[in-house]
């Protein structure tokens, strides 16, 4: 029978159900999807879609306005030599860098996303987390990436974890809210499934795998697990939630396998920046090199793409 924690409240007073997850079968399904063979026109389309869905990210203590300006140029025009390459979806920075990024991307389709809410641990008081979010939104961030309160979640205080997301959503106003589960810390696929349902029920616009600050991050089975949660949530509530994989996605092949997993689980409708993102930094250049390979028939090497 379902235990009591299998039901989670939604912000409209209803509830959603969560389900057990079988790790062996989940990983087998992800491995099967990763054997999809993506060739010719599909490969090119996958590479372009990957670029359009990237949140180009820099989250370092040594980030400077100059570094962010350079990143923004790369985001707008990933390959200066090839104008057919689309812009990425967003740049993702710390709140301190938001204004610099907003200036750099103004007049383009690139959105500024900011981590906030005491990223990456989230271990500040609720008031401080909310203030951090409101501050980033006030500086012009169109999207806010916060972390789930794992301390509350893991200690069984689902209510507090839930309420903090509700408060974050309020603080976002019209900005989109992405909730990072930090899947590598939650211990099991089933906990991640439950955390996914909790974050969606509390109003997340996107659920996101990881901060990128710990080693276990956006693995293929984990993205599949969260895609299945999103499908389940849409079935139960009719609400569409986006998915962001972040952390450890460095190669084009990893990225198109993520596209395959999301596309075959949620449908091709999900393969747009409105519903799917890949948080990454070095991924973009590998994708550009793969596109050059398709164009010219050979690999050109890292000196033929710009470092940032």
């Amino acid at each position, binding site marked *: 029978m379902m235990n009591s924690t299998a039901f989670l409240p939604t912000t409209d007073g209803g509830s959603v159900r969560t389900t057990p997850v079988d790790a062996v079968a989940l990983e087998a399904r992800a491995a099967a999807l990763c054997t999809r063979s993506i060739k010719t026109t599909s490969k090119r389309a996958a590479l372009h879609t990957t670029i*359009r869905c990237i949140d180009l990210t820099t989250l370092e203590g040594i980030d400077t306005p100059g570094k962010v300006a350079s990143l923004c140029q790369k985001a707008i025009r990933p390959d200066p030599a090839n104008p057919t390459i689309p812009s990425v979806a967003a740049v993702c920075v710390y709140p301190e860098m938001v204004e610099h990024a907003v200036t750099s991307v103004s007049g383009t389709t690139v959105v500024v996303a900011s981590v906030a809410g005491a990223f990456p641990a989230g271990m500040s008081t609720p008031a401080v987390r909310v203030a951090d979010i409101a501050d980033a939104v006030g500086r012009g961030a169109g999207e806010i990436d916060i972390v789930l309160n794992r301390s509350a979640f893991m200690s069984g205080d689902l209510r507090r974890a839930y309420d903090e997301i509700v408060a974050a959503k309020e603080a976002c106003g019209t900005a989109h809210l992405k909730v990072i589960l930090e899947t590598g810390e939650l211990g099991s696929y089933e906990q991640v499934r439950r955390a996914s349902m909790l974050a969606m029920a509390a109003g997340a616009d996107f659920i996101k795998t990881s901060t990128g600050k710990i080693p276990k991050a956006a693995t293929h089975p984990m993205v599949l697990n969260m895609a299945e949660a999103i499908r389940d949530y849409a079935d139960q509530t009719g609400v569409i939630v986006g998915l962001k994989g972040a952390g450890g996605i460095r190669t084009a092949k990893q990225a198109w396998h993520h596209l395959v997993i999301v596309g075959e689980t949620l449908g091709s409708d999900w*393969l747009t920046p409105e519903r799917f993102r890949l948080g990454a930094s070095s991924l973009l250049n590998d994708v550009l090199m793969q596109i050059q390979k398709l164009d010219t028939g050979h690999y050109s090497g890292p000196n033929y793409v710009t470092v940032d």
Partner: protein
Amino acid sequence: MTPTDNPLESFDIDYAPALESTAVIDIADSYGHFINGVFVEPSSGVTFPTVNPATETHLADIADGSPEDVDRAVTAARTAFEGPWGQMTGSERGRYLFRIARQLQERSREFAVLETMDGGKPIKESRDLDLPLSAAWFFYYAGWTDKLEYAFPNRTVAPHGVVGQIVPWNFPLMMAAWKLAPALAAGNTVVLKPAETTPLTALLLADVLCDVDLPPGVVNIVTGAGGTGAAIVDHPGIDKLAFTGSTEVGKTIQRVASTRRIPLTLELGGKAAHIVFEDSAFDQAVEGVVTGIYSNQGHVCCAGSRLLVEESIAEHFVERVRRRISTLRLGNPLDKNTDVGAINSADQLQRITDMVATGVAEGADLYQPECELPDKGFWFPPTVFTGVQQSHTVAREEIFGPVLTVQTFRTAEEAVEKANNTPYGLSAGIWTEKGSKILWMAEKLRAGVVWANTYNRFDPASPFGGYKESGFGREGGLHGLAPYLREQTSDAGGSA
């Protein structure tokens, strides 16, 4: 989809074709029988064609084995048994089996492409399941060759002699491997008959047997249809029979074998139940049920053809199964992204079509996703019947096609009762996260193999076989080695 003028810009899951190359294989115009280490012309001169079921193109002419051909094969096998093979130590035999296993690995792409062309199954299945398991079976039994005294302690065992083996068309090479490996490991020699619609990989295996210098006559391959099989079953020189195929033919073979007092193992049909409880891992259960029936187009004796789902989740579960099968890719089996290939033969397609028509006529509700079938070849879309009653033909008879029937249950007892209410008893699947329930169910289910939270998993160390009309004897593990040995103290008719 984001609107775009350029179709290249929007990735979707209708992937561009990704065809496996056929350049790796070389099919002859015609094949004789493989007897005493060489290919020989059939005595009758009669041949029949084997075709690619996905395109209906002619692949090769195959020799139709007559009783004379079978007699030559049995004589060669007897000579080899009394000669070099019978004199060999176990470890020497093992070296041949290891070599065969390694050759299957090295030439796996070639075998996989040929299996797919001759049988219609998706290349990803022949590549990722049939070939790895075929090699694994030889590796596993190679390891037992010099350890028989440890395998059966306190008993002195010896091979039967000449073994007749008849294998089906659903896993042509793998079924041959399942049978050949333990028979050879035990020290027998073999007359093998592959199915008439899928003989090519067995004939390519003959190539491997020559390459590894297996002594002539140890394995003989006689091709043909039912008449050839009957000639093997009837031949007085056969010391043991093993058959995988339909229950109907199995019964006939058992009748004949019983008059000659030779040991027999049968692996026959099935009508397996997939039992899904409310507390199962929902998404993995949907996936498991779908692959459990639609892989290899449902041409699987242990296919989970009856879904029994707890009533409280039935509606949602079935909806999700329907949605999932609408995303299965049906088409060119050589495309690496194809999930559902071609039906093996025109005859089998007719049988499936008739059975499904019977299901509709008896009042079950049919669901088939919108699915474009290729113009040429033998195709049948993935099919689900809901509103199925225990008395419906589609819930009782083996269809051997991509057809799932759905029934509901309220209690675990009711699920067991319905699952067991069949003349078959090959396999069953249980889907629940509760371990105690799995153990309780596994004890009650009258099925040779019970999978829990997975399905269609095979391992050479794990015995496989049926209860009731699904046959007797086991393949895999020590259980699969025993039928190929006799206790030396008993007379020639006894089985180990």
